[in-house]
């Protein structure tokens, strides 16, 4: 039985998640062999000051959205003699897990196009600064994970508007080895409202489509029908934590998750450069 400390996930989600996990019990950081951190209320060194040598620590990718932050976590983990993993929760959504499973099974063939749309509302981002790469990180990571490689060519451009109340769109466009390609549409909305997302993966022998347009229910309670999101619920957390538990039992190495996230951060820096230069670049990774 594994003992897990889960920091930064509050009730009722916390209870819902633990009730669904196998072979693990909640524990304090001092008692745990697995520690999962999803809260940025403390720095990496502060958080790891209570670590015990030999523990496995996992931090969510939101806590390392800058290279310096990731390096800080790595240094603190080394000093505390714990192993470190980074997890992008987006990868663990049931929809994304299913697509990855279908690719791994070979049914879809080789991935040749990943196309995603994400329209984000104002909650997280500084719309004056238009923090594109930051807004894109999770989806960039999912795409490179599904492709199992990093881009070889990169282009990006943004819509231009003088109205700060208008949304802004950034299109990121990448080429991969084998002439595979990816195209992301990120749109930031400077107001409240529901987000929208869509992910299509075309393989050489099949395709997978996951789209909010399809995954909506209709609610009628007035003049106009409402489209209500069919949520994936707490399953992303359950998938992530169960896989972390399973990996601990199997003594699997999750260190690749850290190098993967380094790759995603490097990709976001390349996008920043392309947006500045307005020129496509060839990547050498």
């Amino acid at each position, binding site marked *: 039985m594994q003992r897990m400390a889960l920091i930064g996930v509050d009730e009722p989600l916390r209870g819902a998640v633990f009730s669904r996990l196998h072979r693990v019990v909640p524990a304090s950081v001092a008692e745990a062999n697995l520690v999962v951190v999803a809260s940025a209320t403390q720095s990496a060194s502060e958080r790891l000051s209570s670590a015990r040598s030999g523990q496995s620590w996992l931090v969510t990718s939101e806590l390392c959205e800058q290279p310096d932050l990731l390096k800080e976590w790595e240094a603190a983990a080394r000093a505390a003699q714990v192993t470190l993993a980074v997890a992008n929760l987006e990868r663990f959504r049931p929809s994304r897990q299913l697509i990855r499973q279908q690719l791994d099974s070979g049914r879809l063939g080789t991935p*040749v*196009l990943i*196309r995603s*749309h994400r*329209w984000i509302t104002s909650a997280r981002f500084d719309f004056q600064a238009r923090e594109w790469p930051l807004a894109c990180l999770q989806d960039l990571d999912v795409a490179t994970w599904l492709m199992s490689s990093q881009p070889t*060519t990169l*282009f990006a*451009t*943004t*819509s*231009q*508007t003088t*109205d700060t*109340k*208008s*949304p*802004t*769109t*950034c*299109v990121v*466009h990448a*080429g991969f080895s084998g*002439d*595979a*390609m990816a*195209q992301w*549409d990120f*749109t930031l909305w400077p107001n409240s409202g529901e987000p*929208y997302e*869509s992910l*299509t993966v*075309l*393989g*050489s*022998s*099949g*395709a997978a*489509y996951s789209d*909010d*347009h399809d995954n909506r229910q209709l609610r009628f309670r007035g003049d106009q029908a409402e489209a209500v999101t069919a949520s994936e619920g707490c399953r992303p957390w359950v998938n992530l934590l169960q896989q972390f538990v399973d990996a601990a039992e199997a003594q699997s190495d999750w260190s690749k998750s850290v190098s993967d996230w380094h790759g995603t951060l490097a990709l976001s820096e390349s996008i920043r450069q392309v947006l500045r230069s*307005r*020129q*496509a670049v*060839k990547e050498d990774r």
Partner: protein
Amino acid sequence: MSEPEGSSVGRKFRCAVLSAVKHDYVARGVVSHPRFELVVVADDSGVPPWAHERNQEFADAFQIPYVRDVEQALRDYAVDVAIVSPEGERHCDLSIRAARLGVHVIQDKPVGTRLADVDRLVETIEHTGVKFLMWNRNFIPAIQQARQDIADDSIGSVVSVHLEFYFAKDAGVPKGTRRPGYPPVDWLAHQLASHVDGSDGGLGREPMGELAIEGIYPLGYLRMLTGRDVRRVFARAASQFHQLNADNQVEDLATVTLELDGGIVASLAIGRIGAASHPSGGVINARIVGSRGALVIDESRPSVGVYYRNQPAKEFRERRVANENDFLLADDFARAIDHDGATALDVHASRDIFLICEAALESARTGQAIELPSNP
């Protein structure tokens, strides 16, 4: 652009089908409108026997004559409208010859295969004053609804447009299945052989990729929905699915990022992605972000799902209904002739789209974003 009330009153337009060797859907689409009637099929006497055979079959189906002389047919049958649907490389030539005789032109895609031919077509249409319509999908109900929403200012001014245009059709054997030592798949031979089940695309001697063949449709949407010119493109293109495309070095998948006037950006993914990749012929949709709202449009709606025991694998499960694209395109053309107005996709717009496709393919070759020239 016309309103969809219909322009059914007025004289009938006598139509010649100038080569029915490719798809006959354009001619059939035009005569879905009661003001258009087919009176003759015509082609040059020197076209290959298979072309004569197809022309004759089409003429027989409509019980009209087949004449092996284009100019004679246009004169003798007092033709008003030429419906031009030969091999891709003959599009401009037949359209130009019809226009020179004062005959209006409805042409199948693509507008041409070489810029010089397209420029000659533009010059001739301008000089003769006849009407020209590139057959397109702009009147599909879902796209018209989006156009109306934008016109009604429901979402404010357009900020970005994202188009997906996947035809889930095969084009012969999958890529990678040609046995070592076998010769490359011949483009024209494949197109001729696959005509029987309608899976031919890009008929002609010259191989054409999916962007060149089908790009007119989504780029026609983009033009109609934004009313803006494209200024710069970046693209990737590859043959990923079909041996035919790989052997002939033309793309069956392309992605294009576009910068338009007015600070608008757009993205397009287009491909012939294989029949296995969708149960109902493919995914075609538009996402439009406006300054005050957004639209997510599935081009196939309205539709009805039909499923039954022993259903053929290739039969679409979701059937489109209430699609009046053909009638409305023809109606738009009739209105343009009646009132000397513009058509839904005229020769200048067609040339612009041709240039966008050419620039996209150049970008895919060079890996660089390509600027498009400004219109005069």
